[in-house]
């Protein structure tokens, strides 16, 4: 493998690392946010690509095929934990929090009946969120597996020697193409659409029940609630509409002018 090529890629990878404490703060130098988080990914890609290209260039056809398969599997694993909306909260449900303790299907009764029922509904919503997330992750994994297989097929037969930096970049782009194509097939499918809808709908229910609980506490403390503010907003909007309607009745219609060409005298604005 051309040393210059790997030096270029190592330099590229090093660019993804924060340079100074200040830039670490700006770009999330802890690796969780910003460009800093790409450093490891770039380095891992570089290492894996080198292994593949070395294997593909020097080995027999079966070994080259195995190198391609290993490289594809590596890429698949790299994206397995990728955070998409269903793992970062498109709705209000928190995927990372443990579901509330199950209250079973036992009938709610007594002075706290309403609260018991609300908790039961939240528990059920949380269970639905969890199930939908698992379905989505499984579909994501299916897409990655399909992408890896397509990528491996595209890589075989062994890549010719004399690899350039541009070829390495094309390798990366080819992986992205395979991944997007596989993902698109999955994302357009009914299974994915149903799971995504279930995730959003369950998250909406979870949030609604949580809001109801918080509003109950707010009332106990005589704090304003969102429902009250919504009511006031609605009243204000109604008054505004009445006012606007009254104003419009008084105004002469703008369309009184019949010309569609600009006036000779320039308007102030």
């Amino acid at each position, binding site marked *: 493998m051309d040393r210059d090529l790997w030096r270029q890629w190592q330099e590229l990878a090093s660019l993804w690392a924060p340079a100074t404490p200040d830039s670490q703060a*700006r770009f999330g130098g802890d690796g969780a946010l910003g460009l800093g988080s790409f450093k490891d990914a770039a380095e891992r890609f570089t290492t894996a690509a080198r292994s593949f290209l070395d294997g593909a260039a020097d080995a027999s056809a079966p070994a080259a095929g195995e190198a391609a398969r290993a490289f594809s599997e590596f890429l698949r694993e790299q994206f397995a934990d990728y955070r998409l909306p269903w793992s970062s909260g498109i709705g209000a449900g928190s995927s990372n929090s443990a579901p509330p303790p199950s209250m079973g299907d036992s009938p709610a009764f007594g002075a706290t009946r309403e609260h018991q029922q609300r908790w039961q509904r939240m528990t059920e919503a949380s269970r639905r969120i969890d199930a939908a997330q698992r379905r989505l992750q499984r579909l994501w994994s299916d897409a990655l597996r399909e992408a890896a297989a397509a990528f491996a097929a595209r890589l075989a037969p062994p890549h010719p020697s004399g690899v350039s930096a541009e070829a390495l970049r094309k390798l990366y782009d080819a992986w992205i193409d395979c*991944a*997007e194509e596989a993902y698109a097939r999955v994302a357009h499918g009914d299974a994915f*659409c149903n799971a*995504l*809808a279930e995730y959003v709908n369950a998250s909406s229910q979870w949030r609604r029940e949580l*809001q109801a609980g918080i509003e109950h506490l707010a009332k106990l403390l005589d704090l304003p609630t969102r429902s009250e503010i919504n009511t006031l907003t609605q009243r204000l909007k109604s008054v505004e509409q009445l006012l606007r309607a009254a104003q419009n009745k008084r105004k002469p219609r703008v*369309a009184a002018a019949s010309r569609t060409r*600009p006036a000779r005298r320039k308007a102030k*604005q």
Partner: protein
Amino acid sequence: MTEASFYAALAAASDGVAGCSQKDAVWESGKLRLYRYRPIARPTGGVPLLIVYALVNRPYMLDLQEDRSLIRGLLAQGVDVYLIDWGYPDGADRLTTLADYIDDYLAGCVNQILKARRLSALNLLGVCQGGVLSLCFAALHPQRVRNLITMVTPVDFHTPTDLLSKWVSKIDIAAWVNNGNVSGDALNQLFLSLMPFRLTQQKYMHLLAGSPDRAQIENFMRVEQWIFDSPDQAGAAFREFVTWFYQENRLVQNCVAIGGRKIDLRALRLPMLNLIGTRDHLVPPNASLALQRLVGSADYTALEFDLGHIGMYISARAQREVPAAIANWLAPR
């Protein structure tokens, strides 16, 4: 460029100010601002053009920087350009409906321009979702619109390649909105999820692997700023838009009503120009091309560009072709 200077350039560009052309606020209503751009070329003397941008992103994408500005391109053609900035809705705007946006805000802007310029009609350019709003406005007030231009505007929301439409088809939108606003961040996540590998990985890799200079970094960061500068959506309008258009495809079904008044696209007889990006992943070309069979205009022109959704605003090809196409189409009308 060294590592340190690369980060310094990124840091400097991240504080950049979007928008390059000079403009004046000529009217406001609530959070809305109506701007008029100052001319940079000899005016053609034609009817002013009001640009109606989408609610889901900020309109400065149309005037990002001097060499990437649809607005600047139009100004250079001598077009008199107005732009609506919808602002950032907050909790107090949660009950704002599509009727409010179309019949109060948009109508207010049109009235203001017509009154100030002593005209009876102007030209409308609706961009993306703003194109849908413009179509509705033109159908409600045909006497106030002289020519209508739609750009990357969805009309048929149920085309086979429309992934967003498929995703939202079974979502309970009323429950999702729940009388509140919809987070712009959540919508951004959704948009990124349409092509997650390209939009969250590859573009950053290309930036770094391309050994960008300072100007390229600044260009990249301006777009980056725009992409993630996503206003929350007024809940009621969002619920109506997704339910009526994405889920029920009402424009095609010819059953949209705004403020109790029916929107009949077949009654639209005014000259229409439809601009389409053939590689648009957000608004598939067929979603826009459907407009021709739905409207009653005998003067309908569709222009297709080999560009994606964002490329229609900022690509070099768009700068060369789109403003000129608009100006040339408007000139005899």
